[in-house]
């Protein structure tokens, strides 16, 4: 229970501390001490009226004590300690007076001067409140590796002078893109190999961002997209096997997530948003409506492809076109794509060839897709399709 409170408070508390102390590492140590103290005192003395303010004040005071003690620190830091001490205590009593600086922290963590994997790890650690151990587990790397990655990123922020600020308007769109990309990457890492559910973490981050930037259509659309996709997670697999969208048990879909996703998408389009996340959310929405409006889906993929110039988007458009104009039309679009190492290219092409009755070619294409697919449900699904293509005599 207390752990949940801590998870919710961590990003908020840490961001304010970074704002005060000017350093992530220092803020993290101070926050950790405050949370440790809280887990000792709250169960005994009861939760304070304003937990956030209590945690921030306690952490701040700890940090000042530490700065006072630590005589090896530079003069500049001591001066900062003095300035902090001189601040009146009462500014900390009321959360409404405490600045919410999670956006500043998010933009610092997702700064393009950091490597992408460092951005992702740092965001999950600082704003997501995951422990280093959990972040390491989520990305299947040893604790030591993740710990080094995080330390290095924090050093770079300090040494290179990466600002703790929301970027000015002229660079905001590209910097916001970087933040959105980090969150979406976390989402697409899948449903937690182990104890950490990254899709849920990404949705949490998306919700924080949507609260802080309620007028950015792409922010709302990314959250909508994640919710709409996540709503079907329990229907996607049955007995460890893949269930295609049309065969899914709709009673397993999360209606609340779908409703939330749709209302966010409506807000995004009301803001006249037409960016890549708005388009993707709109497509995700169309996919779960019945009957599926393939014309509209193909149109939106066309628009998305125009913006992103991504051959993967064109691949998806080919599937939609195939539903409207038949497998011949889909194949024509597919043959123009240069996606030789992408397994879904081969499985899609195989599927189209199968529908055209070109079984030998289909079998070869499925084989290529199989080669590119790791063992698991997806591989079993493809193997099943290949088996269906074998002449009856060859089946077991």
């Amino acid at each position, binding site marked *: 229970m207390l752990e949940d409170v801590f998870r919710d408070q961590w990003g908020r508390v840490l961001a304010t501390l970074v704002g005060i102390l000017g350093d992530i590492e220092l803020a993290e140590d101070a926050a950790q001490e405050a949370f440790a103290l809280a887990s000792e005192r709250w169960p005994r003395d009861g939760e304070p009226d304003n937990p956030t303010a209590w945690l921030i004040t306690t952490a701040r005071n700890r940090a000042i004590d530490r700065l006072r003690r630590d005589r090896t620190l530079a003069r500049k830091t001591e001066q900062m300690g003095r300035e902090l001490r001189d601040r009146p205590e009462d500014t900390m009593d009321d959360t409404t007076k405490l600045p919410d600086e999670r956006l500043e922290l998010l933009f610092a963590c997702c*700064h393009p*001067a950091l490597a992408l994997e460092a951005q992702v790890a740092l965001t999950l650690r600082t704003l997501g409140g995951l422990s280093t151990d959990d972040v390491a587990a989520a990305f299947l790397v040893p604790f030591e590796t993740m710990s080094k990655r995080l330390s290095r990123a924090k050093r770079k922020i300090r*040494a*290179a*002078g*990466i*600002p703790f*600020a929301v*970027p000015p308007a002229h*660079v905001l769109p590209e910097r916001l893109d970087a933040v959105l990309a980090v969150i979406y990457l976390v989402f697409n890492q899948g449903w937690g190999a182990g104890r950490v559910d990254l899709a849920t973490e990404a949705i949490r981050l998306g919700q924080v961002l949507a609260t802080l930037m309620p007028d950015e259509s792409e922010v709302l659309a990314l959250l909508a997209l994640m919710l709409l996709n996540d709503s079907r997670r329990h229907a996607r697999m049955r007995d460890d096997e893949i269930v295609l969208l049309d065969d899914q048990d709709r009673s397993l879909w999360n209606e609340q997530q779908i409703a939330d996703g749709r209302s966010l998408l409506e807000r995004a389009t009301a803001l006249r948003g037409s960016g890549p996340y708005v388009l993707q959310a709109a497509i995700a929405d169309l996919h779960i409506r019945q009957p599926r409006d393939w014309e509209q889906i193909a149109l939106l993929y066309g628009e998305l492809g125009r913006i992103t110039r991504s051959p993967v988007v064109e691949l998806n458009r080919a599937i939609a076109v195939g539903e409207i104009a038949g497998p011949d039309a889909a194949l024509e679009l597919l043959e123009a794509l240069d996606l030789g190492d992408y397994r879904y290219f081969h499985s899609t092409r195989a599927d189209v060839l199968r529908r055209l009755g070109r079984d030998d070619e289909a079998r070869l294409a499925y084989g290529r897709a199989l080669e590119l697919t790791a063992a698991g449900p997806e591989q079993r699904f493809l193997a099943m399709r290949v088996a269906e293509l074998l002449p009856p005599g060859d089946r077991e």
Partner: protein
Amino acid sequence: MKYALLNYSKGAASGERGARDMHPGIAAVLDRPDVSGWVRLQPAESATTVTLEGRTTLLTDGPFVDSKEFLGGFIMIEADNLDEALAVAAELQALDVTAAIEVRPVFEQELGGA
């Protein structure tokens, strides 16, 4: 903070480089108040790279990075943060004179004997 913008020049290092006029766009940036110093380097062929192999100092003729680009000079600027420094670098890079610009924060403390 102080930043060094390391300008990587395009193409082969020409012996006549020093005699050539500086690109007017770069000259204009060098005159600005946020630029605290700059150095235009002699051609890369004049460089000697010092490395250490075990305990022996090795001297190698030529610049450290053995590629088409070479370090042509650097500009020292004063900026509030990395974003401001990157903006100056982007502005210079947009002139399409340099192959790349590396932005390096500079240690601010006084060195012994300085």
